[in-house]
């Protein structure tokens, strides 16, 4: 069990303890305030170098990591390569070695291959590696920002300060995750975070998009999706990843929408206070109806904006390490 992410790489949320998660959420809360300042910067990572390496397409994750690093006053080296290391002709190891020669404190890595972040952490053991999504494996900062967003909204509704609530708002919270669990690194990180924080998680998906070991996950598989809608305090939809060939796991997109899409009709079965989440980018009309995506219950944009304080917190804790003072 990882009791704190301070001073270490963040590769996965598997085995990250409740206290460690709450520490990140609370740290992120203290960075939200920076966003409201005229000068949106703190000197916490001044003089530190953060490389942002995206070997796979990404807009929101890359922009929010780079914004986070800049708000912490770190120097940011940015490299976007939308191709596999093999196609590029240079190995991941050589790319990392080249950039490391410039003097690195942290690497933010997105890669299409599961385990790439862990491999990089072996190539450069002195550098903190932050996994920004690796293959089908993990997307830890997404799991953190999803938990952060839920806690923030629930705290606001109760009129309490989010950072005073620890993990209490997750106690017994009903979270329903819907869609392509099999190919989703977001689902793996979300489940790790929600369960560690005390929520009850159910998943709903076509049989072909459930991992074969789902019985060993700390979740319940729902047999009746429509019934589960009434149970949920939070519904998290996953992107149907057509670009990974997921389309061939279901007979057609329209059948998927009919059976597991959050259509307007289905959304009416949700409890009025239920929250609707999606990691983006949305396939409007496939897993989520356009009208539903724009309801006030949908807190998708908040997820995006919370990406910055969460990633500030992760960069700060992993890089600044033992120093407990937030600048």
């Amino acid at each position: 069990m990882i009791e704190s992410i301070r001073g270490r790489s963040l590769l996965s949320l598997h085995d990250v303890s409740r206290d460690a998660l709450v520490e990140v959420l609370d740290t992120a809360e203290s960075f939200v305030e920076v966003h409201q300042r005229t000068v949106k910067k703190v000197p916490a990572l001044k003089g530190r170098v953060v490389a942002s390496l995206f070997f796979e397409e990404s807009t929101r994750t890359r922009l929010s990591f780079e914004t986070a690093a800049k708000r912490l006053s770190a120097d940011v080296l940015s490299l976007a390569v939308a191709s596999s290391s093999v196609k590029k002709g240079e190995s991941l190891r050589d790319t990392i070695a080249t950039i490391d020669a410039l003097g690195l404190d942290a690497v933010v890595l997105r890669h299409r291959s599961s385990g790439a972040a862990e491999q990089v952490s072996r190539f450069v053991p002195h550098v903190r590696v932050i996994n920004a999504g690796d293959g089908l494996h993990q997307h830890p900062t997404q799991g953190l920002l999803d938990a952060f967003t839920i806690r923030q909204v629930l705290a606001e509704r109760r009129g309490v300060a989010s950072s005073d609530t620890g993990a209490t708002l997750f106690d017994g919270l009903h979270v329903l995750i819907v869609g392509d669990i099999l190919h989703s690194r977001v689902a793996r990180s979300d489940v790790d975070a929600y369960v560690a924080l005390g929520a009850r998680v159910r998943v709903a998906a076509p049989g072909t998009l459930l991992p074969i070991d789902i019985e060993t996950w700390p979740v319940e598989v729902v047999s009746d999706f429509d019934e589960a809608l009434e149970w949920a305090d939070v519904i998290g939809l996953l992107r149907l990843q057509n670009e990974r060939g997921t389309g061939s796991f279901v007979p057609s997109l329209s059948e998927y929408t009919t059976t597991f899409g959050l259509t307007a009709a289905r959304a009416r079965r949700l409890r009025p206070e239920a929250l609707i989440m999606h990691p983006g980018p949305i396939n409007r009309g496939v897993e989520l109806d356009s009208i539903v995506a724009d309801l006030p219950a949908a807190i998708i944009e908040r997820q995006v904006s919370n990406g910055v304080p969460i990633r500030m917190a992760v960069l700060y804790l992993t890089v600044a390490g033992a120093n407990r003072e937030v600048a």
Partner: protein
Amino acid sequence: MASVVVRNGLVVGPESATVADVLVVDGVIAAVGENLDAPGGSRVVDATGCWVGPGLVDLHTHLREPGRESAETIESGSRAAAVGGFTAVVAMPNTEPAIDNVALATYVLDQGSRALVDVAVAGAITQGRRGERLAPMAELAALGVRLFTDDGAGVQDAAVMRRALSYARPLGVRLAQHCEDANLAADGSMNEGALSSQLGLIGRPAVAEEIMVARDLDLVRLTGAPLHFLHLSTGRSLSMVGAARDEGLPVTAEVAPHHFTLDESSCSTFDAHFKVNPPLRTRADVAAVRASLVNGLADAVATDHAPHAAELKDLPFDEAPAGMLGLEHAASLTHEALGATPGDPIRFFALLSRNPARIASLRHEDRRARHSGHGGAVVAGEDANLVVFDPHEKWEASWDRLQSLATNSPYHGRELTGRVRCTIVRGAVVVDEGALA
């Protein structure tokens, strides 16, 4: 030729073992007995406390030449084989291009004739290993090729496999199958299960192997042609083949050392040195494969020695090529796996020499085969292909000690018990004191 006398070792025969000297003259075993008089000037190998048996035979070696000589060559691979106690290896045909014609087979045999150990060749079953049209098996058989396989992949089309078996049977050659259904195993890079799911790696399910084993057993029943099953990795595969053997079908099975020493958990750090096809399986499968050495379900241990350039094993797990080195550690790992079984030196040589030599037609019986004199009894008149194995020596496997050009061994840093001391190929001492002579 000079003579060699191997003194005071436990000479391991097919059914019994006794302490004796072995005198080798002119490449042939001249005498076996106590306190033999050796001609003056004989080279003396002290085998006290060691096993002396027929040189090991590897049914499954990827020598990479032609095509990928940066990973291994026939010459470097034969050095690795010699250090590992092997006096003969069967070179797999999945080179670039594939060994599917007489010219290429001749090239490998010629290169092999200059190597430290005997290099037999397996031919491809189908042209270009594409699984469509049969390779010229009769022409290759006339050259002395006795084993045919599309290894690296199985023959996917059942009709093609049936035709290949029917064609091979009257030629007196044996087919060998890499059992994996390509559709079920597609894109997978480790065993399918809870761990692959947690790691986000696409799995190669056990059933991908088992479904082809089941299919091919039926095709053997239909055609009557012999079939050898390569690197079986699951308990179920071994049971199915065992039941077919009991039924009288002409089938044989090999297992690879990594499948009885390493389980899928080795993949949990995404280190591609542990990526191999078929993949490292569950602990239960590892136990079943290990048990097959003793209970007879496995006929042979074969290395599936698969060299890959170091930079390729640094790739992300799903992009890295599958395969690991095997020649230099197989004897030690097999010895460890047999453990304290009474009579294990006999089983050791059955698994690593006698049975594989029979399967590959490398004994004396087949006069038309290119190579012979392997896997026999240690008696006067036999070719002097011998190995001296010290079952007590403890040593550490290390990347920097390998004879292979490649370094993709999963055993770096592992403490091993039992080591090849001396390898004798047709009377020539090619390895002495565990190092190339």
